[in-house]
């Protein structure tokens, strides 16, 4: 088990009601996809936030990654909607 900082932005932050939190990763939660499934089980707010995981982007330690990227060694993971800057 390892601890990871999880950050949420834009409507993911609003729906989860959380900007950031520390999570103890269960051993079988080893990708962003697995973490999203795990978060959905927590409560209704998380289930709502992560109901359409296809629409959610993720970054590990400030770099964009795919949903199947390994979490090994990750200190921080972020979930957010597609970017709309510029």
């Amino acid at each position, binding site marked *: 088990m390892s601890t990871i900082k999880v*950050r949420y*932005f*834009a*409507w993911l*932050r609003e729906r989860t009601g959380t900007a950031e939190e520390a999570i103890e990763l269960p051993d079988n939660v080893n990708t962003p996809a697995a973490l999203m499934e795990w978060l959905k089980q927590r409560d209704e707010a998380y289930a709502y936030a992560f109901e359409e995981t296809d629409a959610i982007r993720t*970054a590990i330690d*400030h*770099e*964009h990654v795919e949903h199947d990227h390994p979490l090994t060694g990750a200190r921080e993971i*972020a979930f*957010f*909607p*597609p*970017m*709309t*800057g*510029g």
Partner: protein
Amino acid sequence: MTAPITPKVIVQAENFDVSLEERELREGRLDVGAVLSFTGICRDEGGLLEALELEHYPGMAEAELTRIAVEACKRWPLTGLTVIHRFGKIKSGENIVLVVAASAHRRAAFNAADFLMDFLKTRAPFWKKEHFKQDGEGSWVAAKEKDDEDAARWN
């Protein structure tokens, strides 16, 4: 060919000064033949929009903008490149983003700024929330498929 230059990347709440940034890329050098400035501005959407609230991911915003800017400096022979992106509440009529590209030749400046804006839109971690004049806080701006298509032009 000379080594790529190091771009200047800033993420800030404050406004920026286009002419100041242009001057910085020109001052004291005579090898610059083209300076292109692109400013992205908050529109009022036909009088409806009061402001945009720009949320960003501190740390990653700077890192990702720097990655895109460094890639632009590798692809085109620039003499200077500056990217400034604001966050926080931005009223209609105010500046959101600035790209200044300087080069010996105009094509490099155009391509680099165009590339930068395309990738910035789809990869830099910023999110816009609309504040309307009538109804107060509105919804998050949806990402446009067109933006992904624009970015795909450079592959």
